[in-house]
């Protein structure tokens, strides 16, 4: 089955920044993304876990966005402004997609 070339971007970011990143995506014209929950993790600031947490402050979420290669820079710029001072792991990888017309 024929697949088309695209980029898959994942952004792990603090939960309190979720709405801001959604809005930044909106402004940058990135309308396709999916948010998955995160249970815990570890980084330079130590280990953490969302279990039992009541507030947002402890948590993170992961954005996944699949986009056409030519739109990558707009997305990364939007994301970078936000994650610059924040926790935020941004990865980009190549992938194939079905139904390229949707992206």
């Amino acid at each position: 089955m024929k697949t088309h070339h695209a980029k898959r971007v994942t952004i792990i970011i603090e939960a309190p920044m979720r709405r801001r990143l959604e809005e930044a995506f909106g402004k940058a014209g990135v309308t396709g993304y999916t948010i998955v929950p995160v249970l815990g993790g570890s980084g330079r600031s130590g280990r953490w876990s969302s279990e039992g947490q009541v507030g947002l402050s402890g948590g993170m979420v992961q954005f996944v966005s699949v986009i056409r290669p030519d739109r990558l820079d707009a997305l990364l710029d939007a994301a970078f402004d936000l994650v610059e001072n924040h926790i935020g792991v941004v990865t980009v990888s190549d992938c194939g997609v079905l139904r390229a017309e949707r992206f």
Partner: protein
Amino acid sequence: MSDILSLASENLLSPIILSFVLGLLAALARSDLTFPEAAAKALSIYLLFAIGFKGGVSVAGHGLDATLGATLLAGVALSAVLPFVAFALLRLMSRLDRLNAAAVAGHYGSISIVTFLAGSSLLAQRGVDAEGYMVAVAAVMEAPAILSALWIVSRGGESRFDANLLREILLNGSIVLLVGAFAIGWITGQDGMQKIQPFIGAPFQGVLCLFLLDMGLIAGRGLRRTRASLGMGVIAFGIVMPLLGSLAGLGAASLLGLSLGGTILLMILAACASYIAVPAAMRVAMPEADPSIYLTLSLGVTFPFNLAVGIPIYYALALVARGGF
């Protein structure tokens, strides 16, 4: 004196405090006991709704006290001013930099609703009444401290305020729920209370136990992971500051002429530190500040201190101040 001791032991040996201790020990011993995040959030929604509603019903019942407006203002003022005190104290007692000191300071102006609940429980148990609107005072004290902390930091550089952030702080879920439930309780009054009492009234203490068990687990996990990174000065601050705060609350309450119960609750509100609303705001507005400092201090030091010994002390102080001892 024996009265103070009985007060302290009554408090320490209550199921809610013991539940907190159980959680703390379990986490320190590295048990895998945990609450699902969704369950913890559901418990907190229940508690906020119940306490807000009851406050509103109480106001509907007793009518509007003339001092309500003044007490709300006093709450806002305490919340706004205490961060400056905390900031100065931190610069004196610890080696935290401006940014981290301001972030911590913001937590101490704001409030911890569970500490408030623990205090209310002790009052209820001793048959001491308090103004029903104190829960509204708790609600208005959540946010101003955050603005003070931002202001402290902004002095030293670029502004930290933006319209989005302000809206988020003021329409924070816990404020909205507390104030909204307060309004519903006020509107529906005793009639409404009768309908939902078996849900928000009778089981309340038990739910609070589970919630404190979870708080103990989180506090213990936090302590285990970041104990090392808190200096002695910072830890000492986590105990001195609530005492100072409670005195400020006592002063305000005396000026306002609050009842004994209301005085103790205002002292508690001034003494406690936020670990839900303020940390979330700090992550957005001061991302460079280290969360392990403010979270561990607030939840791992000040919260247990208040629960275990702070509340009885404030109680005793209020009695002494009123010549009641």
